[in-house]
């Protein structure tokens, strides 16, 4: 690791943003550093400055605000997994964070980190996209929010400017009558990153048809994949095997799947077909089993 590397631990966001402005692309933010340390060791990144967020107060809270949960950037994966309020209000989020890697990683890795890293094979991004979450970002010109679906731009690339910092994410609590699911399909070990991960939300109308259907597929392409046109195939319909199959086929046909050691492109396409179907079925069944199954 280069000997010129500098380490900063600012105590305010303003100072942190100023340091990023000063160092530009040469600076990296340290949150949990679970990914950064590995990327540095593999020489995939070689920053000249590290800006730690660890001394900035107020970034590690989970709170309910206006029907949404706001989760601070420095909240650790394990804290989301075990949070009483997350479990009660958006259980799929707690479940998903509990499926990331192993407990040792979850004790260090942060919510802001998994967002800013934009690793295609992380679990939480697909769930955030399915839940219409909004990423809170702070830069020299103040705050802005970016919808999760626009935040992930490409492999390890986000909509963040070089001097912007993720401060948190706001996740709307699903409306009454909704069911949610996240299916993580792994091909190697139980703690591996997913080959394909599918998040779904179904809200049932009183007549049993789907008033809302949302599906986001993670790990299959560079960014989480969501197709409102294909979600519309299910909306307004009873989610029969036939309708669910059509949505799953449409997603399998639309995603330009990638090839890696967890599965070939062809295999991923077939797994998208299978797991989109299962994720919708799980969300549908959760919605049907009552309000407790939010």
């Amino acid at each position, binding site marked *: 690791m280069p000997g010129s590397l500098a380490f900063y631990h600012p105590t305010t966001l303003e100072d942190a943003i100023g340091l990023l402005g000063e160092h530009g692309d040469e600076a990296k933010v340290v949150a949990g550093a679970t990914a950064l340390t590995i990327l540095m060791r593999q020489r995939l990144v070689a920053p000249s400055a590290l800006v*730690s967020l660890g001394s900035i107060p107020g970034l590690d809270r989970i709170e309910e605000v206006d029907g949404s949960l706001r989760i601070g950037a420095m909240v650790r994966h394990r804290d989301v997994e075990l949070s009483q309020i997350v479990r009660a209000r958006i259980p799929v989020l707690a479940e998903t964070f509990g499926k990331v890697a192993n407990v*040792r990683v979850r004790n260090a890795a942060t919510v802001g980190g998994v967002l800013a890293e934009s690793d295609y094979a992380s679990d939480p991004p697909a769930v955030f996209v399915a839940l219409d979450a909004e990423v809170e970002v702070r830069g020299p010109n103040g705050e802005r929010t970016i919808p999760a679906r626009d935040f992930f731009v490409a492999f390890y690339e986000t909509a963040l400017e070089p001097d912007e910092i993720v401060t948190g994410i706001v996740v709307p609590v699903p409306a009454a009558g909704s069911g949610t699911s996240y299916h993580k399909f792994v091909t190697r070990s139980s703690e591996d990153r997913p080959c394909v991960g599918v998040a779904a939300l179904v809200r049932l109308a009183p007549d049993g048809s789907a008033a809302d259907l949302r599906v986001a597929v993670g790990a299959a392409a560079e960014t989480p994949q969501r197709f409102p046109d294909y979600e519309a195939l299910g909306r307004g319909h009873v989610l029969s095997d036939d309708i669910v199959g059509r949505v799953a086929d449409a997603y399998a046909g639309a995603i330009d799947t990638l090839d890696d050691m967890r599965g070939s492109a062809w295999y991923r396409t077939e797994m998208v077909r299978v797991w989109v179907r299962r994720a919708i079925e799980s969300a549908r069944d959760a919605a049907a089993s009552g309000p407790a199954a939010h």
Partner: protein
Amino acid sequence: MRYLVTLQVNRTSYPVELEVGRTLLSVLRGELGLTGSKEGCDDSECGACMVLIDGRPVNSCSYLALQAAGRQITTVEGLASGTKLHPLQQAFLEHGAVQCGFCTPGMLISATALLAANPDPTEDEIRAGLSGNLCRCTGYVGIVAAVRSAAAELANAD
């Protein structure tokens, strides 16, 4: 650039001067001479480097030493009291839970965190609690038995 920090390891203060990119594992083993924590995969997969930070298990291979400043670090060296082994260490010996020994420090730290959170775990809970600590020798049976036995021992001691 080098920075002077004080690391609190096993209730002892260690002032050290460090390059920024150094991992906690490399500093524990290098400057501090605490070679109980092992470098296995160096990629957050195997658990051999596991330590407790403020009581929570983390991989020291993917944790910056500078991040650990001001936190309480516990390594496997911090488990025994003088020459008296921790009940988990004693149970690992008695149940043949150690073969080559490379995974053992991580297993012991993992089990310590597990029993702190759940003093009377079922076998399934032990297996889940140790998942991600990879052992390539013993096949885990002895390790699980040792943790069960230590849990009982600790409960009796209370």
